[in-house]
């Protein structure tokens, strides 16, 4: 009986030792992975910071103004170029005349349009 017990114990020790070793090995590799990911995250943050700085440099108002002046036909807003929602109705172009009686030239409005353009 005692021998069997010892055999079981030895086997148990071996299994436990192996399991412990595997576990520790796994833990180490997980730790390495964590460190690597942390470093990646950190370098991504640095990169984001760099990109933000670059974005800020590229969108500085002075540069945008220069670009707008060189490439757009528009100038700063004049006071009468701003209209509120309530003033919008007064600025709408006249509505196209509604002619319900007029029969369409054909069933294909696109074809009409193309013909008109020619």
């Amino acid at each position, binding site marked *: 009986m005692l021998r069997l017990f010892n055999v079981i114990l030895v086997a148990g020790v071996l299994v436990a030792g192996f399991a412990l070793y595997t576990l520790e090995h796994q833990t180490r590799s997980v730790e390495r992975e964590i460190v690597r990911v942390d470093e990646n995250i950190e370098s991504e*943050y640095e990169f984001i*910071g760099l990109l933000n700085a670059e974005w800020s440099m590229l969108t500085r108002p002075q540069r945008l103004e220069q670009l707008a002046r060189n490439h757009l036909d528009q100038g700063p807003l004049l006071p009468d170029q701003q209209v509120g929602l309530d003033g919008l109705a007064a600025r709408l172009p006249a509505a196209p005349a509604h002619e319900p009686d007029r029969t369409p030239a054909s069933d294909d409005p696109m074809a009409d349009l193309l013909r008109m353009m020619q």
Partner: protein
Amino acid sequence: MTTTNQMGSRETDFTFRGHKRLRLVVAGFALGFAVLVGKLGWLTLVEGRQVSRTAQFDAKVRIPRPDITDRHGNVLATDIPVSSLYADPAKMIDVDEAVELLTGALPELNAQQLRRKLDQRKRRFVWIKREVSPGQRELIHNMGIPGVGFRSETRRIYPMGKLASHVLGSVDVDSHGIAGLEKFLDDQGALYTASLAETERAASMPAQTSIDVRVQHAVTDELRKSIAKFSAKAAAGVVLRSDTGEVLSLVSLPDYSPNNPKDALKNENVNRVTAGVFELGSIIKAVTFAMAIDAGTATLKSRYDARYPLVIGRARINDFHAKRRILSVPEIFMFSSNIGTGKMALDVGQEGHQAFLRKMGFFDRLTTELPEAAKPLLPKKWGKLVTVTASFGHGFAVQPLQGATVAAALLNGGKLIPPTLLRRDAETAEALAQQVIKPSTSADMRYLFKLNVDDGTAGKAGVPGYRVGGKTGTAEKVVNGRYSKNHRLNSFVGAFPMDDPKFVILIMLDEPKPLPETHGYATSGWNAVPTAGNVIARIAPLLGVMPKFDEISSGKLKKYKTRVLKERRKADTQANLAGAGQ
């Protein structure tokens, strides 16, 4: 046989019967292991998570310098990682070779100086070059010179360049703030800085200023144009939110690039808005008016005799635009009459005048987040004459920001709110606000300011539709101890839209020169005021002020548009010519 027997009997004897000592030992071991197993189970199953988490923490003792952004989150200052090259001379094997290789990789290094540095055998650490580019770093790394290494550092950069340099200040090579908000973050604002920091970088907050980069640029650009046009020595501008005290724009020209920190401490680059004190001249008259109306000694209908100069002792106070008649209070404001304003102050009396100025904060140093804050210069003795001269701004000098703050209080319903360069919400502002004049007095002040732009000396600040109001100031500068007629400090303080003044603007030009198109005049109405007008035309749409037109402003609109479009065409032609010349 007996031995095998004995052994057999021992093997089969599983119950340890009769082996008392052995049993005791087994029991002892079993107990010991049970305790260990129990403890192990407790640690792994119950407390396991906490243990593993503490193990992951890095010791980050230094609080990282927060980014600085404008009120909409545009980055104004940030840290970027850089490598710095150092050497440990004690570990160096061949100094000559090292010097040769290093100067080869970094041509800007001085070979002799480097040799001297590396020959100090007793030292264990010398910097060779701060902030090496990634390419150079790679190159030097591959050379494998013994005793040479890199340290990663951060470098402060200001992506928007000169924009808002006086607000931001700058840092030295070791990332310590030496001026502006950067200094505030290290010194008085250390608690605020710590509140932004988080152990995880992603969670750290930027320091959000009250500045709006678009407004800041518009003010800078217009001031720069005015300096060129009127050959002025310097200029300054402030845009303030009158309801929260937030500074939307703070410009002082000439300015510097914070990326080049040495320039920050040059004398001509001083922040004129807070670090200098100036006699604001007639702008202060608005304060006298508010005082007299608030005290009840004058109303908008009162009249004052401005026919003769005001004589006090041996001094005679005269008017610049002398009308030589009896003036009503709005007329005194519009013609900027010294005589009238002086009399209004005398009606209130010396004590009342001083008490009012003290209440408005003119006697104290205005403190904001900026460490550069100058003390006001006040008259030493306060007599009758000083009361009169102080009523129109002579003899006492304050920070221009102080002038803008008080103007905001006069117009926003009477609440004096200390200005700030950091983002502030309405509740905080409400808690800090002090009621200094009655709301009805403030309404009268709005009327006077608006009237002065519609019909008075500040006409050129008016942009039709945006309902601008303002007061001009032309102060003679003290040159060699006397007021000089030819050295002026011109200013304008105004607000818009006047039916609910949200934004206060102050413009200051130092020694603008007369031009043919200003008919030889160099008073404020001809230079500081139109500059303010140009600024308002640019920033009002940015700030969401909707134009409103009545009969008068619609009439002015056509003339205004013709002038602006003509100026734009002229500027375009000049730009095209300059482009063709290159």
